[in-house]
């Protein structure tokens, strides 16, 4: 798949079909990849795919001008579709290089399981449903369901539906939706007061680095409400109240665009379980409006559309 990707990317650039390639190249740390954004055909030799291509690259589409070929996993393709629905990018300007994805390995889970940091692990290899981890000469095996990102476990679209070139065979979902939302389920069981205290505590840690917002392909506003100064809705300093409101409103603003790709939670340096919010919103949107973000390129964006009769029971 990797070879095919490199050949394809090179020829797209060579033939002038695209101006940019967005993909992954090996990262500077063990088991990491990093976004490769290039115009140079020789760079395409560094393109990789695999179990560690974490980033949702669709984020970079709106920054580039010209035609762009982009490597997209299933979830990324949904974000791209969502951007197209919102008229942030033109379908004609993008070449989607679809990558069927059986799930991405969550290094923090592996680290937890073997009680070692990433750089102390010698090797991580995946063979279908089993991930073997070699630490200090010892080989340990884990079912994929234990080491993949939570959002991958509940993945609804492992193989992109919208693509120009599909690199590889379609793959089926992991299908462990319950495991994908354990924190959320735990929260749902709490009384509301306790839930609120939970979030109060979690957002007490927030340092307002805005990584959650900046990695998010659905957060594309040129100017975020949190940066408005007249009126100043929120203080620009990390009080838990302001942190919480920021995140709640961010989630509401991206409702119907958020594909539950999990990037916000992954990027958070202080481990706030943000996916429990995004997932909740995702489910609410599906439940109330039977809408799934980025699944149907012909659908109108959730918050610009309506049905004459819906959600009436919430209104007096």
């Amino acid at each position, binding site marked *: 798949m990797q070879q095919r990707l490199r050949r394809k990317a090179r020829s797209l650039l060579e033939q002038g079909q695209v101006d940019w390639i967005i993909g992954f190249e090996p990262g500077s740390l063990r088991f990491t990849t990093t976004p490769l954004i290039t115009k140079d055909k020789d760079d395409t030799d560094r393109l990789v795919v695999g179990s560690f291509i974490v980033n949702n690259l669709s984020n970079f589409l709106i920054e580039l001008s010209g035609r762009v070929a982009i490597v997209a996993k299933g979830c990324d393709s949904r974000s791209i579709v969502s951007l197209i629905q919102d008229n942030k990018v033109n379908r004609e300007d993008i070449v989607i290089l679809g990558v069927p994805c059986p799930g991405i390995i969550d290094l923090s889970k592996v680290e937890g399981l073997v009680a070692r940091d990433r750089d102390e692990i010698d090797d991580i290899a995946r063979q279908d449903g089993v991930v073997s981890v070699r630490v200090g000469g010892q080989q340990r095996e884990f079912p994929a369901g234990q080491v993949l990102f939570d959002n991958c476990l509940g993945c609804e679209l492992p193989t992109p539906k919208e693509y120009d070139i599909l690199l590889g065979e379609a793959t089926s979902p992991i299908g462990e939706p319950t495991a994908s939302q354990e924190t959320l389920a735990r929260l749902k069981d709490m009384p509301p007061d306790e839930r609120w205290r939970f979030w109060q505590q979690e957002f007490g840690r927030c340092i307002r680095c805005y990584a959650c917002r900046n990695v998010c392909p659905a957060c594309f506003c040129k100017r975020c409400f949190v940066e408005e100064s007249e009126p100043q809705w929120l203080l620009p300093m990390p009080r838990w*109240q302001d942190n919480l409101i920021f995140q709640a*409103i961010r989630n*509401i603003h991206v409702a119907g665009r958020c594909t539950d790709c999990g990037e916000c939670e992954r990027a958070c340096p202080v481990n706030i379980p943000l996916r429990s919010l995004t997932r909740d919103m995702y489910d*609410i*949107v599906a439940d109330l409006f039977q809408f799934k973000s980025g699944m149907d390129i012909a659908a109108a964006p959730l918050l610009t559309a*309506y049905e004459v009769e*819906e959600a009436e029971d*919430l*209104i007096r």
Partner: protein
Amino acid sequence: MAQDLEWEPRLLGLLCKWCSYAGADLAGTSRKKYPANIRIIKVPCSGRIDPLFILKALHLGFDGVLVSGCHPGDCHYQTGNYRARRRIALTKRFLEGMGIDRRRLQASWVSASEGVKFADVVSQVVKELKEIGPNKLFVGERNSDATEAQAKG
């Protein structure tokens, strides 16, 4: 405890100027009695309401927020209230998921001629807010100052 007995909920009404605001006016001019707990902000359309307004109101210490617009099909701008409905519905559910009592965010359709309905809605909402008690969601460490000041004002 004496304070608790005296406590009266503070409700923020975000009312569409084409219907509910006029409805509130009508309730007033026709001397229909309803609780004085509501403070009203006139908005050009219920579709103008960013959920941010709602959370900010709770942050400032309001005990509840009532969003009110035109009945489905009657929007002055054709579709504003339909869009508002989507937004309000998912905001209500989402905030509930975070631990905010669903009764703190209320929505209604009140036309310009429904002064009676407006009074009823406000009475109902205030009654519910009394049941759940004061909003202490954002009280705690520092920001409480702002909330206190608001509560006094």
